[in-house]
């Protein structure tokens, strides 16, 4: 039983990261019906920018670890959001009226471009975050031994997802985003500037992805330019699992995928954990083709 809960905490920490990245996929898909394949690479860029800012500004030495990391997170979010907005302006917006396939190809191209840019700037070797930025203490919860950072990652993710959910549900801009997701034409008739809505989506999604990259860097320490591929694939899967286009779905899907992986590894076979996770995905899609929380969308003809 102890092992069950230990694996549960392992799965939750991994899943929280998947969920943060999945938000970017699902928001873009919701509004544009486009799979943004470059999103995983925005996550990588977040990890690398975090490393550069961390080592060059030495924030944590000046203002302590808690404030240092918080300021760092805000800076990374801002910068990656900016790159996300540029990506939309340069790679997607000119193709807005083209067939959907053109935008998907453009997304793949952007992904390759980002990956190679990171490799050329930072080199192909593994980069390592400085050690001991965050305290290595562990907390004893009912006999379970959980590193503090894992709890912080989970909490930070939940807080950020909660804030995003509130923003989408309760604010005017959020309402505009939801309206544009339902019907762009009608939204435009209601006086919503759809291009600005899309810009907003490309600021929010990459900000979440970038901060996830920073978290992975801070916690796991080791980053390289291809890391976005695995995380991107998993997060994309999580978004589909929860119902792509649905924001709470991405959160549920991400956390669920992390937990399924950990449980698959614990009780079946570690080498098969990805196969198990994808089997679950197939099963869920067979019985609920729109994902767990996906809305029933009438097919537009």
């Amino acid at each position, binding site marked *: 039983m102890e*092992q069950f809960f*230990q*694996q549960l905490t*392992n*799965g939750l*920490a*991994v899943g929280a990261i998947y969920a943060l990245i999945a938000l970017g996929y699902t928001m873009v898909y919701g509004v544009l019906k486009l799979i943004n394949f470059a999103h995983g690479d925005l996550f990588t860029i977040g990890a690398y920018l975090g490393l550069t800012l961390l080592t060059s500004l030495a924030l944590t030495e000046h203002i302590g670890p808690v404030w240092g990391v918080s300021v760092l997170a805000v800076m990374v979010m801002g910068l990656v959001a900016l790159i996300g907005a540029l990506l939309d302006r340069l790679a997607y917006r000119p193709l807005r009226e083209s067939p959907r396939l053109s935008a998907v190809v453009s997304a793949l191209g952007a992904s390759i471009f980002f990956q190679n840019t990171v*490799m050329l700037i930072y*080199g*192909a*070797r*593994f980069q*390592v975050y400085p*050690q001991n930025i965050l305290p*290595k203490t*562990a907390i004893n919860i009912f006999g379970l*031994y959980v*590193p503090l950072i894992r709890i912080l990652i989970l909490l930070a993710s939940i807080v950020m997802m909660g804030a995003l959910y509130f923003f989408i549900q309760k604010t005017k801009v959020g309402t505009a985003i939801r309206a544009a997701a339902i019907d762009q034409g009608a939204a435009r008739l209601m006086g919503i500037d759809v291009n600005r809505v899309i810009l907003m989506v490309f600021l929010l999604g990459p900000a979440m992805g970038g901060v996830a990259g920073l978290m*992975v860097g801070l916690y*796991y*320490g*080791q980053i*390289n330019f*291809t*890391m976005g591929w*695995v*995380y991107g694939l998993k997060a994309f899967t999580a978004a589909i699992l929860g119902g792509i286009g649905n924001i709470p779905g991405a959160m549920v899907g991400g956390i669920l995928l992390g937990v399924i*992986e*950990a449980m698959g*590894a*614990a009780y079946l*076979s*570690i*080498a098969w*954990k*990805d196969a198990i996770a994808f089997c679950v995905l197939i099963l869920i899609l067979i019985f609920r083709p729109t994902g767990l929380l996906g809305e029933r969308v009438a097919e537009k003809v």
Partner: protein
Amino acid sequence: MKKLLLVALALALICGSAYAAEPVKIGLMGPMTGSWASEGQEMKQVLDLLAAELNAKGGLLGQEVVVVSEDDGGDPRTAALAAQRLATQGIVGVIGTYGSSVTEATQNIYDEAKIIQIANGSTAIRLSEKGLQYFFRTCPRDDEQAKVGAQAIEKMGFKKVAIVHDNTTYAKGLADEAKGILDANKDIEIVFFEAIVPGERDYTAILTKMKGFEPDVVFFTGYYPEAGLILRQKQEMNWDVPFIGGDATNNPDLVKIAGQDAAAGFYFLSAPLPKDLPSEDAKQFLEAFSKKYGNPPSSIYAVLAGDGFRVLVHAIAESKSTDPDKVANFLHNDIKDFPGLTGKISFDDKGDRVGEVYRVYQVDDQGQFILMP
């Protein structure tokens, strides 16, 4: 008429210049990008240095030696493409590569093109069991490594052993081989035998599961990027089980990834490291390398690639030919105790290196690799 003359002149120039300086081309296939990029980039540095030294001394068969390098990305699919590109460039032989599954994807391509391949880090047993006449390697084999690993486990008195691999040709081969040897020992019980998925960040799930089996020691046969993360996460879990790694964990980046605290006490098997090479040739080489690049080579596999280059050059010079059959024949039969940088080199019928023993190293508190007595 004028035009025709010009074309003829141009043709004559092209042919003439090509004929005058037809260099001896030697290929290098290594992981310049990807997880193992630090290995590949150092392989290239070593070969560039050796080729420059050779050309300064007058080259090979009176010609300049040119190293043509291709990136295999540490990935079998990329490697197959790299091998096809190299095969069309008129190379006599190719040095590389590091990973066994990567080498395996290219063996037949080189064999069909009659290009001599000298692998530098691919230790999987089955690579040389295919009867390929042009395949050699300067690194030892995994049956040798598994033997040394099993002996180390027996000698240190561990009773319950966990073995973890990553399903690559090399890691699985080494794990299976070690399991076979340890199973024969009645005092030792293998309590855990599984594979991880390489390229991920979080290995706490496998660590948690493995901890439940309470092994005395863990033998990890995968590569250094994952080994570093596993050591780091193991420390975070406050689990102090000793780890032994295979020779693919032998890379200074391991300590960087794991952090000094977590890497301290980690054992690994390896051919002697560059700094522990005894021969005079090796010392001179290390000096020249440090002078050119500012630091000594960190990986033994880069030096083994250098040995592959030197032995190939020697065989071409002695057999006075770039004919692959003659050179391969010379490598198989006529090289006896060639003074390599990593010790004496001879090849058996399969193209495996004869002799040369694995050593056990341990990482100390400062992150240095210390040769165990």
